[in-house]
């Protein structure tokens, strides 16, 4: 029915989110920097002064490699989950393809993400690590992460229309995830038998890859990368299938 310009529409909607969010803040984009910096400070203090781990060098960079993917995941997942319900005005009044709504919500979170990745790279350079050729892997691993989150958002946004508790389930899950992703501990401290499963979590896979690239100047491990790609694409397709099946019911339920 709708034969519009997807690219132009998505760009407009992302800019809309961005403008609404930042127009009324005097510090604007700086807010995106504050949260990771504070978390980096607190976690660095706790894990270098209170529970020091001699195996981890350069703790600020180490922990930021975990915080940036984790906080992007949390924010994008939660706002993606509520996107359909919160855009009821659009869904009930404008015949745009419904898939556009959760996807643009996730993409608007990418604006913070770009700022935070900038911060991460800045801290890497300040800490004395230089730019290396492996940085070329960065766009690829991040794109897989975004694809993964778009898939989850499609899934949870459509479920949230039918069962509004979905939102709280997603919120609790992201809290649990903080401990299941190696944000402040090292992959080497995970028992061997859990390692394979661990890598299946795209957020963990991304964190591990980031640390290899930025701290060790090594390319991501082949199996990690492979699992990251497979899980991300599968989740995206699954999200799309579920969303397409459920979207006919949105009109009546929001």
């Amino acid at each position, binding site marked *: 029915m709708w034969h519009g310009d997807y690219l*132009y529409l998505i760009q407009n909607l992302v800019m809309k989110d961005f403008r609404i969010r930042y127009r009324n803040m005097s510090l604007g984009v700086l807010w995106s920097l504050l949260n990771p910096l504070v978390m980096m400070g607190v976690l660095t203090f706790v894990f270098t002064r209170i529970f020091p781990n001699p195996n981890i060098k350069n703790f600020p960079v180490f922990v930021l490699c975990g915080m940036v993917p984790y906080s992007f995941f949390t924010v994008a997942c939660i706002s993606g989950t509520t996107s359909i319900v919160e855009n009821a005005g659009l869904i009930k*009044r404008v015949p745009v393809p419904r898939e556009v709504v959760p996807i643009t919500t996730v993409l608007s979170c990418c604006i913070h993400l770009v700022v935070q990745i900038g911060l991460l790279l800045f801290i890497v350079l300040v800490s004395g690590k230089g730019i290396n050729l492996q940085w070329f892997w960065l766009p690829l691993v991040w794109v897989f992460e975004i694809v993964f989150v778009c898939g989850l958002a499609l899934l949870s946004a459509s479920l949230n229309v039918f069962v509004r508790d979905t939102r709280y389930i997603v919120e609790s899950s992201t809290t649990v995830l903080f401990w299941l992703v190696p944000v402040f501990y090292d992959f080497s401290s995970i028992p061997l038998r859990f390692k394979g499963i661990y890598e299946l979590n795209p957020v963990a896979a991304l964190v591990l890859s980031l640390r290899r690239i930025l701290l060790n100047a090594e390319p991501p491990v082949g199996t990690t990368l492979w699992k990251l790609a497979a899980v991300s694409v599968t989740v995206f397709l699954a999200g799309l299938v579920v969303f397409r099946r459920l979207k*006919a019911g949105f009109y009546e339920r929001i």
Partner: protein
Amino acid sequence: MNGSDGRPAIVFHDVWKSFSKHAGQILIRDRVLQWVHARRPEKFHALREVSFSVQHGEGLAVIGHNGAGKSTLLNLATGLCEPDRGRLEVNGRVAALLDLGAGFHPDLTGAENVHINASLMGLSRREAHARYDDMVAFAEIGDFINEPLRTYSSGMIMRLAFSVAVNVDPDILIVDEVLGVGDLAFQAKCREKILGFRRSGKTILCVSHSNDTLKDVCQRALWLDHGRVMDDGPLARVVQGYKEAMNAHSGAALK
């Protein structure tokens, strides 16, 4: 796309649409209770076996009492929801004015909202930029275009929304009760624009309670009563029948 392929602009063939009465029960608790009691949600039929077609260049008014299914019919034609049964065909670009300012955001400027709305209605970047000046000029809101929408009067917001919709240059314009936009001068301008639309062979599907607007814009009317088509034909005849039925009804209620 303007009827050259011989297909009508809009076709409804035996369309049914119902809504579930318990659609509001959306917590896990409600789902579990529904399942335990094996309760099937009750259905409310908004449209029953509705069939009609609108040719390109025709103007069709949908009339009926409140809750007769008029808005459901427009929403189906716009593509916001799908029928339970039956076939529905819409051929051509649609612009719908269901709520004025759907998709507008109060914190964004008029200009930003115009671009967002144009892309929501399906314009490409090039088309949106080409028509932007016409959209703003038609709305007559002057320098306010660069102010946030929350500083606008409700009349200004309606004028801007109407202006975007008509300048999208749709093949089919779907309008719900909103032709009384703005002051008298702007209303006259809107009517002129819509008549121009009709003359250039565009299709209009509208709901209105104002006979004056209907008379100008539509020659044909469809009368709905509790989701069923009561009559479909020349505007004067159908409106007459509807009025008589309403009078008989209110007369009976008074006795």
